[in-house]
């Protein structure tokens, strides 16, 4: 009886006392802020092995632990990271029937071309090998033309992929990386070219199941002539390949002898990298804590630690920001206005790397007429969408690239909202208003189904506004909402739909072959609208073979203009992202381009507000003189 009553009254009493004590403790007794940056994320990283993940939560954490060979600087130019230098060249091989013919061909090239020659030449049996200073097919094709016009006919090479075309010559681009000296892994082992070669082998290893594998498919070999040099040889010109070396490099001495099946346990949750922060602790669904790497090759970071907290609920993430439990907050568009005038916060806004669109299924007769697609684009009021769906925080999309990308063409202007022009275009295309107000052509009403996925409010709202806008010009739209998985399986992958609201978020890659090339229209491929245009096909292939930055920008602009002119999608808008920080909570002291340290407030750059986040510091823990004296 005593025990029962003790339980009955004792426990509630004890709980109440504890509650009060804990409340008082949490409210008044918390002391000493740590020199720690706290970042809240809605999703949790799946793994910290950078070659086994592709989600943003994982790469955000991995970005502080690892380095690639190269990286983007704040102006989105490529600069060295673990590599200090990289040289591009190419070996082009012409093959002849006899040694004699090869020798003659070489002689011809030597006489007809102006000096200095854009290549070095070697004869190897009946093969003429030219070492070009720049990769790409263009020069090789010119040389081939010279040879042919002079009566030399090189033998073809077998195609690279089964069923492909024979090639008149073999063009093998080469990237030669010179690695940074004195870099050490977090466990003290030296970083060498063997690590780079190992990372490549790991990505290609089927047991690793790396999502990055397709980036390295065209690599022929990775050689390491010495510990500071890596030579990568490709099977054919493919310019996006250089960007793939931004991939984080893994430690060979830890993983080389370990079966990939054991990586998830042994490495992926406690990785060792070369980056400014070392892995500290990971509590699933709670937090990942990184500690500063005092031996980082650019010098020790100013912060003691960085903690990534998993806060799955957007409202409580906001509360955590307001109580300074996390330092940054990614704000929804509707809430931005309320914060803009607030002196307590710093706001960083920029258009994101994603755009929303409506894809017209070009296999449907009604969407095959360009005039109709233009009319649809002019009938839909995109500025109004931006105003009501994004609360003004977005810009109208002008095609396949978003404004933040370095190859974006700002001269492409969006089609204006003009329902009268739209009506005229529809009249011209033969769609005349019918008895019920809906346009008719050859007895068929202009009526189609617009699909969107469940749970995405932005896309649902787009569908509703489009429905209304198109009704004004005499087009009937039926909106249907499906679960994402169903939408993909039943409609998108099969290419069986009329029109669909979707979005692309594509990063800084100019290669959009898989989305727009006419060879990519089969089931489960990404050109699911069935777009096919010879000019675009050529541009896409040329772009993949072009290595020079100005030339890439020119071709990309032409691609953007051409596709926008064809209106295979109704390009809608690029939403703007806004990040909030407590005013002055962090400053930035980071290495400038000339090797000096620059101290400045956190600000927006082309590469985003969080560029060089490893060099953020809290003003109450200013960078110390000792750390400051470390040179690059």
């Amino acid at each position: 009886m005593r025990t029962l009553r003790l339980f009955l009254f004792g426990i509630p009493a004890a709980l109440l006392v504890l509650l009060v004590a804990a409340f008082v403790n949490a409210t008044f007794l918390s002391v000493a802020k740590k020199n720690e940056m706290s970042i809240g994320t809605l999703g949790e990283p799946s793994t910290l092995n950078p070659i086994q993940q592709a989600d943003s939560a994982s790469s955000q954490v991995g970005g502080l632990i690892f380095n690639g060979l190269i990286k983007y600087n704040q102006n989105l130019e490529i600069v060295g990271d673990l590599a200090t230098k990289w040289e591009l060249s190419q070996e082009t091989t012409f093959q002849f029937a006899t040694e004699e013919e090869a020798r003659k061909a070489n002689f011809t090239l030597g006489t007809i071309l102006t000096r200095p020659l854009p290549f070095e030449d070697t004869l190897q049996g009946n093969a003429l090998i030219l070492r070009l200073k720049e990769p790409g097919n263009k020069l090789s094709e010119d040389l081939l033309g010279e040879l042919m016009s002079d009566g030399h006919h090189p033998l073809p090479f077998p195609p690279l992929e089964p069923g492909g075309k024979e090639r008149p010559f073999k063009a093998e681009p080469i990237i030669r990386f010179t690695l940074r000296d004195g870099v050490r892994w977090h466990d003290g082992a030296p970083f060498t070219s063997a690590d780079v070669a190992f990372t490549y082998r790991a990505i290609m290893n089927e047991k690793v199941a790396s999502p990055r594998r397709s980036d390295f498919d065209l690599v022929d070999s990775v050689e390491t002539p010495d510990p500071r040099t890596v030579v990568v040889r490709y099977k054919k010109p493919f310019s996006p390949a250089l960007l793939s070396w931004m991939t984080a490099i893994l430690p060979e001495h830890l993983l080389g002898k370990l079966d990939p099946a054991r990586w998830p346990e042994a490495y992926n949750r406690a990785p060792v990298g070369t980056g400014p922060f070392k892995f500290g602790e990971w509590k699933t669904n709670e937090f990942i804590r990184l500690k500063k790497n005092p031996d980082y090759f650019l010098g020790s970071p100013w912060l003691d630690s960085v903690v990534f907290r998993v806060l799955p609920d957007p409202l409580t993430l906001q509360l955590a920001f307001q109580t300074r439990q996390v330092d940054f907050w990614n704000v929804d568009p509707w809430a931005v206005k309320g914060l803009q005038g607030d002196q307590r916060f710093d706001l960083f806004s920029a258009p994101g790397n994603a755009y929303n669109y409506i894809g017209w299924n070009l296999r449907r007769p009604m969407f095959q007429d360009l005039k109709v697609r233009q009319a649809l684009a002019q009938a839909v009021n995109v500025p109004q969408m931006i105003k009501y769906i994004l609360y003004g925080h977005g810009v109208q999309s002008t095609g396949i690239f978003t404004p933040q990308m370095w190859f974006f063409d700002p001269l492409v202007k969006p089609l204006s909202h003009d329902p009268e022009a739209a009506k005229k275009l529809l009249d011209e295309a033969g769609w005349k208003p019918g008895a019920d107000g809906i346009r008719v052509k050859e007895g068929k009403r202009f009526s189609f189904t617009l699909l969107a996925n469940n749970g995405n409010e932005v896309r649902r709202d787009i569908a509703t506004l489009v429905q209304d806008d198109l009704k004004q010009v005499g087009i009937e739209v039926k909106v249907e909402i499906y679960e994402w998985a169903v939408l993909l399986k039943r409609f998108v992958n099969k290419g069986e739909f009329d029109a669909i609201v979707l979005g692309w978020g594509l990063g800084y890659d100019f290669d959009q072959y898989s989305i727009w090339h006419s060879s990519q229209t089969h089931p489960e491929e990404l050109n699911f609208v069935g777009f096919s245009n010879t000019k675009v096909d050529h541009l896409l292939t040329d772009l993949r073979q072009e290595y020079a930055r100005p030339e890439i920008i020119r071709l990309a602009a032409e691609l953007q203009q051409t596709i926008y002119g064809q209106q295979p999608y109704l390009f809608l808008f690029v939403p703007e992202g806004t990040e909030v920080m407590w005013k002055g909570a962090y400053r930035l002291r980071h290495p400038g381009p000339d090797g000096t340290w620059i101290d400045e407030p956190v600000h927006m750059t082309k590469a985003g507000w969080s560029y060089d986040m490893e060099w953020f510091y809290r003003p109450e823990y200013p960078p110390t003189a000792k750390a400051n004296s470390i040179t690059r």
Partner: protein
Amino acid sequence: MTSFILRRLGLSVVLLFIISIVSFFIVTLTPGSPYPWGELNPKISAEVKANFRKKFHLDRPLHEQYALIMRDLFTGDLRSIKDDRPVMSRIMERLPATLALNFTAILISLSFGTLLGVYAARNAGRWQDMAGSFIAFLFIALPSFWISYLLAIVLVKGFHVPILGTHSYGIEFSNPFAAGLDTLWHLLLPATVLAIGGIAAQSRYLRATMIGTLREDYIRTARAKGLAEETVLYKHALRNSIRPLVTGIGMLLPALISGAVIVENIFAYPGMGRLGYEAVLERDYPTLVALNFVVAALVLLGNLLSDLLYAAVDPRVRLE
């Protein structure tokens, strides 16, 4: 007795087998596929996708997939599609936090519920009873996400108290005791929200049986003997009213490890509910099948335990 237990265990194995089949098919026949890198990702080639499907046996027919999942479950080789780690270690790492949360919640609901129930029964028909009923029904009616948000907003905006996760971040505590109190604080809040429904249910339940018991002859006898009212209530009446509860303890077994999706999400508490919820969203079939299996096993075990306890407390019951 022994034969009863053996028979029940045998039956449980058959049931578990059927449950595992049903849960496997419910899980795998849901639209969607467990693909961690997004279906529409231009960076992922068809070859990589195929390789991934092969690795997790997703290219096999469903019945083979089921057999493989079951084989791996029993050999301990079953790996999550999300991070390729053994499913059992993913479940086990949630266990301490989940047990702490559910144990506290059960403790709160039982103790406060019993007090409230006895109080209501004692004052049956009077205004105290009405008030108690009102509170109980209010507690049952309030959705937990609403209370959680309300609590979070009031505490955070009004008092600037950290409430998320299992402890406060970015601050150093002067001593381990303060740090311990901080952890406790983070545990008590979600536990209280979880317990609210339980308090109400337990109090209503107890009130009903207690009112019945208080009308019994032996209560009148006890009072006539001149026993103190407290003794009558807590020794004679409560002990006899609490019996159904004792047998219900078996059902607490699965409740101890089961998760609370909404509360865990809002308070960012790392429990079993979030593991299951995220596995559903990611179509992480191995994790889902394993979780279902473990919970089903505990339910069956709990049922058996209930029956045994029932026989133990009530001598009139015989297990045959």
